[in-house]
């Protein structure tokens, strides 16, 4: 098999403009619709990511697409100029982790895992940040709402899919792998 030719500059410009303009992560198939015959969207995005590597703005794979983001090392200096949201409290982070790993999950199930009741505040914080959403109801007495994480959850934590989370087995014994 022969190596495919590298993407043309014209196609790279178009992909760059498309991803730059978008407020949300751009899936490869959206780019594919704009490309001429014979150009592979995946290959174009890979080349674009290569060119932006190490720059002030980088191409990240998140939530099933790609998005330009500022390089993490610049955050401390950008923070003085760019507005930032407040940190989630520890309880909210734990609840978020439980939902991420056990979804779809009901509120009583979350409470059983934490061994403590879930305050309305915590739920509100996660909802307000668009990190979780109700999705259907469990066919059980009282038909409690089922909670799942959102695409914004993946985007917020720079995950391209839920499969990017550490495996549960790994969490049970060793300290989590740092990346």
């Amino acid at each position, binding site marked *: 098999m022969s190596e495919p030719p590298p993407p043309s500059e014209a196609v790279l410009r178009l992909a760059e403009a498309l991803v730059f303009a978008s407020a949300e992560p751009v899936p490869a198939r959206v780019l594919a619709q704009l490309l001429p015959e014979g150009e592979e969207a995946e290959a174009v995005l890979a080349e674009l990511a290569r060119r932006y590597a190490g720059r002030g703005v980088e191409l990240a794979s998140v939530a099933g697409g790609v998005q330009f983001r500022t390089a993490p090392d610049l955050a401390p200096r950008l923070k003085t100029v760019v507005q930032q949201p407040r940190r989630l409290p520890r309880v909210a982070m734990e609840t978020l*982790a439980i939902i991420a790993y056990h979804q779809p999950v009901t509120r009583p199930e979350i409470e059983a895992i934490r061994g403590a009741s879930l305050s309305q505040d915590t739920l509100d914080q996660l909802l307000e940040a668009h990190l979780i959403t109700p999705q259907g109801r469990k066919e059980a007495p009282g038909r409690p709402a089922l909670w799942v994480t959102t695409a914004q959850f993946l985007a917020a934590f720079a995950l391209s899919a839920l499969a990017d989370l550490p495996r549960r087995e790994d969490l049970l014994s060793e300290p989590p792998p740092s990346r």
Partner: protein
Amino acid sequence: MSEAGAARQLVLHLEGYEGPLEALLELARAQKFDLATISILALVDQYLAVIEGAREVRLELAADWLVMAAWLTWLKSRLLLPAGSPEAEEGERAAESLAGRLAVLAAMQRAAAWLSARPLLGRDVFARGAPESFVTIDRSRLRLDVPGLLSAYLGALRRATAASRYQPAPLTIWTVQNALERLARLLGSLPDWTSLEHFLPEHLAEPTERRAALASTLLASLEMARDGALRVRQEQPFGPILLSRGVGGGSTR
């Protein structure tokens, strides 16, 4: 000594924990934290010591902390039995299940820590501040189809004809007063315990009407039972409600 030290430390921080399970997990961590080899018995002792210490300081200890303490006391009594008895096995299973719950909670805490260490969008990395949108929504065209036209026509005709002739069906409500009168009338003729449903009027076809009448009749029977005119009995939850004449005979109108 070290045990007492750990206990005192936890007393001071009791409010820092979201619940007893989290505190137990923290105690388990103090035991070098290998959930496979953790000594549940030692953990139970530590927790009970903490609770005991806390009660000396503050009498108003939250209920779930005390419930956990009671459960752990029960668990300890089972774990101290000689191996092999059914009670001891019950204790083993409960201890395993507790270790399992602690392991899941520990895993979720690690997951939360892992997430917290990720570069967070809006805090550590930033997306484009002024995205451009090239999508235009064109809503100038109409969605029209014949089925829609026909159903609109039929809807208009139906509503117009209904408006000219509509008369609400009379709704029969069997009031408590009705029920009181009927109960008083029928009760005298009944020798034995009789199901409440036998006292409903016969002409109620609608299920909602029947349910309303059932409620009124129950209220009426309770009212009469208070006066001693009749007695009410139910053998089991959701079982039939039985009525009979009161011992005192009561006043029948």
